């Protein structure tokens, strides 16, 4: 059934689904972050952040299904593109994480390896005398 948006200010089924997804993500992350701070548990804080970071991703997944259900192919492919960019960002993050971990283990073993990109940047930003020390 096609709704005429001029006739009623009622939100559509897709709007409702998005509202539920966002509310669940926000409420869950709020509880985890609060519990993590009160109990001073870093693991809970990490989970809270993870849920918060995943909420927009789930939101795009819901929009993708919504567009598929409406057979709105242009907007379905647009949302697939957004999902692909989010996936690329996760891949870049995973590569950065691996190179950081490799740099940390090389430091721990005392090997003479070139520092990771982030480390070079921090060095450049430090004031002169501290760098020489």
């Amino acid at each position, binding site marked *: 059934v096609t709704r005429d*948006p*001029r006739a009623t*200010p*009622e*939100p559509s089924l*897709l*709007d*409702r689904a*998005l*509202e539920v997804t*966002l*509310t669940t*993500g*926000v409420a869950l*992350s*709020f509880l985890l*972050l*609060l519990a*993590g*701070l009160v109990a*001073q548990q*870093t693991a809970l*804080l*990490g989970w*809270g*952040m993870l849920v*918060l*970071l995943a*909420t*927009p*991703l789930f*939101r*795009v997944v819901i*929009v993708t299904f*919504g*567009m598929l259900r409406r057979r709105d192919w242009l*907007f379905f492919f*647009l*949302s697939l*593109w*957004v999902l692909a*960019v*989010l996936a*690329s*960002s*996760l891949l*870049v*993050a*995973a*590569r*950065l*994480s691996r190179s*950081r971990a490799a740099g940390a283990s090389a430091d721990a073993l005392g090997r003479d390896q070139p520092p990771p*990109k*982030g480390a070079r*940047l921090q060095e*450049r*930003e430090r004031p002169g005398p501290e760098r020489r020390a």
Partner: protein
Amino acid sequence: MPEPTALLLFTGVGALTGLLGSLLGIGGGVLLVPLLTLALGVPIRVAVAASLISVIATASASATVNLGRGLVNVRLGLALELATSVGGLAGGVAASLLTARHLFQLFAATLTAMGVLVLLRSGRRNVSADPALDVGRLGGWLHEAGRVYGYRVRRLPAAFAASLAAGAVSGLLGIGGGIIKVPVLNTFCGVPIRVAAGTSTFMIGVTAATSAVIYWARGDVALPLTAAVALGSLPASLLGARLSDRLPAPLLKRLLAALLLAVGARMWIGTL
């Protein structure tokens, strides 16, 4: 873990910026980064990471309210997310190539330019009460005070360019990009200010998440500080989204312009 008083201070800062961010549809990072760096001495990269995560909280919480009110144009948001997500990814990666001073200067220039733009074009009205108006695939209808107004989206290339820039700036500076999207969508593309703000907050979460994961992987997320800021911004942004309905549109525009210019000026002073 930092001292409880420090955590409470960060929560208060998150609440203030979350309230203003959702009220104006700009996410709040534009105020949070200057407050954390200039007033509380947090390193800019840690502040940017905290801001990105807080912006996701603010945007997701206020989007729940805006969706219920029909203030989110999902199609327009989705179309523009094409550009913002690519910009966000590029900005997040490019952030490691710039020095802290360059980031401050870029921030100040962006704020000043957008403040002037909003101020110059704050008197324009974008909606039409004509029920026969053809709103096109991306336009929509706004229900306000018992009346229905239609709007068309004009100058789509400008909206795409602004969204790409907003995404890049978001990744570089830890802001949602709403300070670029809301003024451009409203003043150039004919989208009413409330819909521009609602659609912007709807998109901001995705843009910020694209770059936040890169900051996380780089080890820039300080968990207790970021959690305290996000905890403050979550309930405050819900309040801000509810309040925005009660303020007249011209006042919202002037408030946005004043805020952008004031924070921009403070950032310029910080770079001297």
